[in-house]
């Protein structure tokens, strides 16, 4: 008996020795990891992060534009499968906005994901030994500019509910800051990025930045965003100063600017805002007031083309498609000169340089087939006119709701059904509350 037990134990031990000696760690078979970038990234790895950042800025952009477009009553998104576009966003009957729903959770997360990528880029560039100091500044300036822009987009949604600025350590996130502190942080981030660019050399290529891909061009883009932030801050002189550093020009083409671009290449994206005309089921329609309020002869009516048949859903109806993005690879503007001209008008009107304001407004009006402004040259009349031009010039580019909020005019937006509401802001996503 003793012998049997001994033999058994010996055999068992042999088996254990023979078969269990290998310990395996397969690593990540599918992707690079963040850690690998932080060690000592090469220039091509840093450029991957730059392109990933530019690419990621496009994620969930359609929801951002639908959020602002729907609440700002620019239009409706009818979806056979998603009622919340016309219930929650429009405040149908008792519906309210919820912090657990896709319309805030998804765009909010997409923007902070890009911010995370920018933070990885900053850290990777800082730790890299393969690039020059000037190139390092270029990467960091780009990352900071984009971070500021992405923060601004989230602040546009949550408004007085605020945003989180310090998000570098996922386990120890900074506090939620209020609207004005948020804007201050964004402005100073843009300023530090501008300083970065002053001695920078650009070692990366960008897709949608056209002529603004070098250090000088990136500064112009940076200042254009800063000008937008200034008007949100009601710093009118600051806005004019920033415009002068940007690509603003009263005689420059309206469409000069920086864009999100799309393509059919592998791993690329199509324009998520593109829906062909006269579709049914899944459609994006101009609010009936868009055509009702437009001046005769305004070529911007072409942004809302007539349908073969009106589309209706849940007591809403429209006979015009939103036709701003006319193909699956059409670009979506980040910021373009037409907005800068309108910022120029706004800042001047606010500073009581009314003639300069009228001049800028006429550039816009003439550019769209309208005669010069003929209304009263008073600050309040010009503000109304400026907001109207913004409404039509920047249709479905993510501005109307914010503009009406800035001027406390949300109560003037049309309500289509009894019980509808116009929201002033989105709640923070539940994970942030």
């Amino acid at each position: 008996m003793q012998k049997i037990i001994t033999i058994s134990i010996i055999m068992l031990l042999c088996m254990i020795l023979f078969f269990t000696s290998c310990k395996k760690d397969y690593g990540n078979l599918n992707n690079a990891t963040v850690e690998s970038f932080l060690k000592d990234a090469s220039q091509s790895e840093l450029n991957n992060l730059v392109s990933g950042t530019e690419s990621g800025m496009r994620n969930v952009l359609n929801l951002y534009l639908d959020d602002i477009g729907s609440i700002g009553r620019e239009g409706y998104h009818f979806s056979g499968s998603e009622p919340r576009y016309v219930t929650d966003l429009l405040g149908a009957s008792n519906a309210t906005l919820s912090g657990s729903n896709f319309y805030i959770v998804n765009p909010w997360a997409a923007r902070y994901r890009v911010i995370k990528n920018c933070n990885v880029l900053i850290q990777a560039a800082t730790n890299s030994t393969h690039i020059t100091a000037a190139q390092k500044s270029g990467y960091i300036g780009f990352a900071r500019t984009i971070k500021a822009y992405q923060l601004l987009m989230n602040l546009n949604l949550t408004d007085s509910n605020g945003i989180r600025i310090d998000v570098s350590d996922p386990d120890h996130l900074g506090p939620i800051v209020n609207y004005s502190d948020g804007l201050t942080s964004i402005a100073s981030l843009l300023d530090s990025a501008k300083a970065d660019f002053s001695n920078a050399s650009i070692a990366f290529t960008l897709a949608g930045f056209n002529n603004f891909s070098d250090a000088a061009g990136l500064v112009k883009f940076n200042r254009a965003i800063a000008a937008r932030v200034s008007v949100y801050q009601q710093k009118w002189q600051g806005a004019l100063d920033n415009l002068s550093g940007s690509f603003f020009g009263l005689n420059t083409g309206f469409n000069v600017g920086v864009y999100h671009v799309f393509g059919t290449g592998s791993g690329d994206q199509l324009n998520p805002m593109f829906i062909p005309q006269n579709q049914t089921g899944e459609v994006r329609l101009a609010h009936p007031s868009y055509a009702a309020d437009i001046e005769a002869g305004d070529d911007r009516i072409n942004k809302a083309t007539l349908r073969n048949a009106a589309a209706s859903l849940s007591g809403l109806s429209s006979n015009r498609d939103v036709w701003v993005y006319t193909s699956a690879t059409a670009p979506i503007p980040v910021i373009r000169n037409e907005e800068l001209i309108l910022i120029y008008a706004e800042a001047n009107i606010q500073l009581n340089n009314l003639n300069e304001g009228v001049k800028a407004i006429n550039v816009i009006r003439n550019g769209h087939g309208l005669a010069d402004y003929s209304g009263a040259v008073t600050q309040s009349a010009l503000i109304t006119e400026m907001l109207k031009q913004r409404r039509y010039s920047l249709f479905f580019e993510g501005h109307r709701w914010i503009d009406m909020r800035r001027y406390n005019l949300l109560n003037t937006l049309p309500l289509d059904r009894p019980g509808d509401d116009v929201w002033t802001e989105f709640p923070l996503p539940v994970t942030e509350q």
Partner: protein
Amino acid sequence: MRQRLIFVTGWLFIIIIPVSLLAQNKTVTGQVTERNNLPVVGATIAVKNSTRAIVSDANGKFKLSIPDNAVLIISAAGYKTQTINTEATTDFQVKLQEDVSKLDEVVVTGLSTSIKRRNLANAVATISAKELDATSPAQTFDAALEGKIPGAYINANSGAPGGGISVKLRGVTSVYGNTQPLYVVDGVFVDNTSTSAGLNVVTSALANGATTSNQDNPSSRIADLRAEDIENIEILKGASAAAVYGSKAAGGVVIITTKRGKAGKTNITFSQDIGFIKASKLLGVRALTADRAASLSRDSATSAALRQQFTDAQSKGQIYDYEKELYGNTGFARNTFLGVSGGSDNTTVYFSVALKAEGGIVKRTGYNNTSIRLNVDHRVNDNIKIGISTNYINSSADRGLFGNDNAGVTTGIALSSTPSFAQLHPDANGNYPNDPFAASNPLQTVALMRNNESVNRFITGANLEVILQKNSTSTTKFIGRGGFDFYNLQTSVLFPGTLQFQAVNKGTSIQGFTKNLSTNYILSLVNTFTPSDKLSLITSGGITQETGDYNNLLNIATQIIAGQSNVDQAGALNATQLRTKFLNGGIFIQEEANLIDAITLTAGVRFDRSSNNGDVGKYYTYPKAGISWNLTNMGILKGGFFENIKLRAAYGQANNVPAYGSKFTSMVVSNITGFPGLIVNTQEGHANIKPERQTEFETGLDFSILKGRLGFELTYYNKNIDDFLMLTNSPASSGYSTKWLNAGNLRNRGVELGMNARPIQSKNITWNTSVNFWTNRSLVTKFIIPPVPQGSFGFVLGSFQIQQGKSATQILGLDGTGGVSKLGDAEPKFQMNTYNEITFFNKLSLRFLLHWKYGGQNVNLTSLENDFGGTSPDYDKVTNKLGVPDAVYRLMQIGSDAHEFVQSSSYLRLREIGLYYTFTKLPVSYIKSIQVGVSFNNYVTITKYHSYDPEVSNFGTGFSSGIDVDPYPASKRANFHVSFDF
């Protein structure tokens, strides 16, 4: 590695051969019969302490050469085992007694040991071949389990052909870790991965641009198995029974034993089934009038146009019931099976071929399965036995396009907004018009699309048993088991450019190629030491290893050339690849002691490590222990009223390893105009992720009375899951949306009551019945992060939320008073089933299975979609307090009250019923018997649930079942059977 295996095997043989030469010097004969003196066919006559065994022939007779003074053990499924001493005589008449309370059923308790139910410390559920497949065969193996496992919550994801079923044993065992049991077929760990075909590309169900999502409704790979080949299934429901399976056992273990060849005259079975498949239930469509049609739009011009369209359609007789057109197809099903069993004393063979082809309730959907199995057992000598099981499977499922979407393209979503006066039929040239009421024309989609999963799969297992040593008191065996499961899965999805919703992409072809190899082995030594009649000790120990290697390549081509589906025939091509790989290793030892055949003590421990853990080198320890105390065998209670009483208790731990890749924070590809880009993944890695650990204690009382004609099994269990794995929602401002965490602890407690009885036992009528009752309650005992809604579509519509002190499966939603309250729970209050078999004159057999699920809620968004699209059959009823149409009232609740969407999914279902008649007196002698029968599946369901079927899961087999978003409707089937035994 492989060299080592060969080396060790050879080395073992050298040690073994000397002990294996033992003389046989006596031949015994006999006959095995049952209570009415009818022969028992296929009873096993085994020589104790030997690999020598034979089965009785068609007349119940056997002949076997044995050593002197050998002891014979005669057993047969459903009968009590008898032991016979062979000293006195050489011809035996063995009369077996029926084992109604299943006390003599042999149940696997270790990786290489088994025990009789009368001494078992756990409540192990078993399903016999008859219960599994002989009442009314289901389409797939997983569907055949439904309603048959006490303690399980089994739920079909949808009615789509090819299966897809969630099995949760004793409550949810994990939140986002694996909740499904491990399937072991003849010792081979079988893969049950669900692989998405990339439907999210067109449905955008997960609206972040991902190519795949858990809403793509793939089938479960376990559905490939054929129920016809299965002899027996054992279900280890929790860690107390399954601890020896270590790191894969947290969801329980389903041990499947396939049929083996039997020595003696070759037995051939040929059977042919034909059947018809129809929708279980259609919801109906809204009866429209000109006024109602006009009210579909608020715009006066459109409203007038709609009115005109309706009256035009009505006058032309073009009002259609599109629900019926889409879901009203009758699928024809045929199933052919050929089984051959036979062999000599030394070698036995089981061979089967099974062919199945079934249509669906939606045109151009269906399921095909071809399976070939060869099981060979060979006895090298009295001490060495080898068994090989091989199975080749080719299956193909056309599953259609169903479920949630955000693009208006799935059949149900398109249907939900299409009124009866829409004109969707093709013109004379076969061109379909666009559906003006939806983003897709569902008739066109069904007619032109393809969503096929096809699988080629090999499952091969080997089993080597070697008696290394034996004497009168001790036997030592080496048992080696292992095998591999390899499959190639091709998913082929095609949406031609002519489809209404392909206006942008101009045709989409998604071709997926998946290869998976799983291997495992268990090498063990088992010593049985029996110093006296009063004591036996079984000591076992060994090592185990499991590996998995999964590789999925998904190509998404758009702008495809008309009529082509190859991915290169396209204007744009995107590809994604996903690989996972793991290696788990374990060491186990177990001791079982049996005292005076009345007290059984079991103790064991297993050490496991896994390449998926944060610390790959660390061994985690999983102990188990059990005791069963048989009061009648002990002599405390004399036989009489009680035939048998047993008290039992068992304890064990098991775990669930983290999902592959939960350790890493990946950078994922995001390109822009040809520039390769990388962006941080939305999932943050957790370098120190640990397995979740389950600790289960169960105790019970089993007793049988009336000479075993009535048996009861009562069980209580308490199962704690510590450090449960959860993909938690991070504050998104961190840049990450999710992170795997060991997020807390949860507990499941439950009761299982079972009864087996034979209420009628006369010469001409026998009625066997079993009734089971089971219930489970879960509680989250610790949760380290703030609770957030998850697993559904938010509080507006009803959502799950893990929360300390609450049920793990609670459903919360807006409660109509401005707050969020609990509106339901996915967990049923209790379930019951009863399986019955009534036999008349040993010829006519009526069998049925009734299943009652009481309580539990679903989130029903199918009805909401119909309301929203203006097509609900009860749209215009007015039963609400506001006096508006009910559908309008229900829609008004959105955003303030989710009660409307969280609905009870209780049901009472006649799952299976079959009537069979066996002819034994036949004019030709070469046919032994012919059986004919008729059967029905899921023909009667009593439920108040307001959608196609209370069994539904838009999110597949994970944690959040019961979310109902326009699934492939459930079906019922009628079958006719004929089967010949040669």
